[in-house]
């Protein structure tokens, strides 16, 4: 199992469209991926779960992945967040 702390840097935070991109990315991997923010741990493959986090810009989330492709999964999610989910700001 690996764990990584990441910072949300896009202006709108984990809004609906960004969350759906994260879900899509997570679903490409077989590992069990969870996201922890503000005392709440949710499944990264669940859209409703991500939405309840309401993680705004600047919030630090922890991503946990467990499975055969855990490294790749975390890297992909990290890249997505770093690229601001493909958004301009």
């Amino acid at each position, binding site marked *: 199992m690996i764990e990584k702390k990441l910072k949300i840097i896009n202006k709108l935070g984990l809004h609906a469209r960004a969350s759906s991109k994260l879900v899509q990315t997570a679903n490409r991997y077989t590992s069990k991926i969870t996201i922890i923010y503000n*005392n*709440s741990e949710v499944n990264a493959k*669940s*859209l*409703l*779960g991500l939405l*309840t986090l309401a993680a705004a810009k600047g919030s630090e989330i922890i991503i946990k992945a467990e499975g055969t492709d855990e490294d790749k999964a975390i890297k992909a999610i990290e890249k997505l967040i770093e690229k601001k989910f493909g958004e301009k700001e």
Partner: protein
Amino acid sequence: MNRQHNIFITVEELLKHIGEKIEFEIIGGKKGLKNQISSYHILEPDYLVSNLREKPKNGEVLLLSERYMKIFENFSPLKKIKLLKKIFLEEISCVFLIQQNEPHKKFISMANYHKIPVIIIKSPLKETIEAISLYLTKTLSQHQRIHGVMMDILGVGVLILGDSGIGKSENALDLVMRGHRLISDDIVDLYESLNGEIIATSPELTRYHMEIRGLGIINIKELFGISATGDNKKIQLIIELEIWDEKKEYDRLIWSMKTKKIMDKEFPIIKIPVAPGRNLSAIIEVAVRVFLLRQMGVNPIIDIDKRLREWNINNGE
């Protein structure tokens, strides 16, 4: 799974939340509205009249019913003061009075002096206790957030568990169309009620919503009406969906129900193997019916076995 725990809320916050349902008036001790409530236990006045009960703990709410206030009115002045001193302790965060009339002047002046808010409640006792204890337990008791679906099926609170992608949401939708109620899809918030039951509810943000692949996010309340949803329900049964494994040997008789622990409490669990072509929502609904019958002591396999044994005794050599 994770746990959250609020340490306290203020009297002001409590009043704000029960204000929708309960009619009340703050008649004294307004300076104490920021007092902290840290216990979800509502104090009843037993300890005031007998020395047997333990003393109130820090951050408790005291509730005095109309019947109790009538007894108080008949006390001698000296006894009244003695009692008031017992009521307005620093441990108490606020006092609720269930009555129509203003209480004795001394009562209000004591409240102001000790900065303990006194609130007169005009709504019935039962509703008041329900509203206060529901909010207090929701915010102050132990919380846990889990991945699953919570439904009210035939009046039974059913928590459906299973790995993601197994079809929990689709089944929940099917169950809603059969007339059952959705409490929460995907994320279920659990808390322990005063009487030790585990209550499941939905996060406010996504309440009444469901994600169905191909449809996106849908609002069940808007699509199916108020009777298709519920705000909270106690857990009575767990149904776990698991992928059908050809190699695994399944218990074919289900002689007795297994249990699963959630928040330190045991709940009966029914494990249902999922395979293509199985009508899962029908199986889940029947599972609940089976559970209800078993609770009444009805178990078909025991009946058949009994008949079989009798037949064997009568017809064997």
